[in-house]
């Protein structure tokens, strides 16, 4: 029966039916197509022969290419590695946070030290300026007061000290602020 086809015809026949035979083998046809292929197979030895070949290669491939799977041991190894990496990442993050904190603290201390230096310098400069100003302004008054109201001279001394401090503080603060902006 096979020789009812010339080779060219045979190839044409294969081209027309092979895919459907393969689909039939893969159970990838609807009911109508399945019925069509099965009735053709019943009548066509060429396609039966081809089907046998397709079936053989299909079985060989299915044997050679099993449904591989990994097991729970794989999951355990993976989760252990994730845990390890996460712990390492957490330790690294902690180290970095501590470093940042330390750097911040140093910067803060440096800032404080600088502020203190500025304030002290400002205060001293302010006091010196104020006392110089007041000294010149009140030298005559003070001498006069000492001479005229001898018992109240001490009060006058305290008054001068207080006003020197007040004025010095004011000028000192201004100088400190100016020094701070100059230092920025």
């Amino acid at each position: 029966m096979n020789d009812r086809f010339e080779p060219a015809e045979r190839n044409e026949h294969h081209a027309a039916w092979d895919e459907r035979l393969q689909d039939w083998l893969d159970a990838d046809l609807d009911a109508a197509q399945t019925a069509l292929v099965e009735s053709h197979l019943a009548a066509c030895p060429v396609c039966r022969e081809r089907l046998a070949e397709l079936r053989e290669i299909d079985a060989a491939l299915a044997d050679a290419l099993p449904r591989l799977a990994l097991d729970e041991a794989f999951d355990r190894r993976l989760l252990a590695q994730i845990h390890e990496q996460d712990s390492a990442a957490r330790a690294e993050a902690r180290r970095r946070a501590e470093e940042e904190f330390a750097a911040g603290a140093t910067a803060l201390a440096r800032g404080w030290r600088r502020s203190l230096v500025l304030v002290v310098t400002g205060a001293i400069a302010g006091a010196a300026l104020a006392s110089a100003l007041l000294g010149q302004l009140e030298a005559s008054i003070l001498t006069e007061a000492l001479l005229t109201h001898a018992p109240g001279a001490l009060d006058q001394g305290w008054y001068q000290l207080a006003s020197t401090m007040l004025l010095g503080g004011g000028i000192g603060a201004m100088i400190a602020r100016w020094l701070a902006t100059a230092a920025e």
Partner: protein
Amino acid sequence: MPDPTADADIHERLRGRDYREAFTLLLPRYRDKVFRLSVSMLRDQARAEDITQEVFLRIWRALPGFQGQSALSTWIYAITKNACLSELRKRRPQVSLDDDEYDSEVASLAAPEVDDSATVSVGQLLERLPERYRQVVTLFYMEDKSYDQTAASLGLPLGTVKALLHRARKRLIELTREDAASTS
């Protein structure tokens, strides 16, 4: 192609930033699919297992950045393909050096039973197929002849997968015939 409702449970965990729970759901669902895709690309089970582990480590680290811009499965298979391709690039020079070892690895994967020296195993025939055919056939059989899963894993349209499979198996039959003709 990918079902938009698939992995809804995982997406929900991701929206809630519960990455640990999302990963716990994702690992058993994708572990073997990633492994089989890796085997089909690398042709080496041991390496494929290593790559699968690497892929899931990458997934774990990248999970917070996954915005659902694509289906989760598409994202996972893309990561797998990239990992395999870079592994292949790394390995290429080595392969040409110890070809014998490589061939025996391939043969042991594709042909578990010992063959007569006269008959060529289907595994050896597979190696003579163009890479695209070989990969599709390998994955299709390892995925229990699922067109959908093969298409999803490879990121190819269903029609392309079917066409490649048809041509690949047809070619395998021709190779079997050629082989029989040359040995007889």
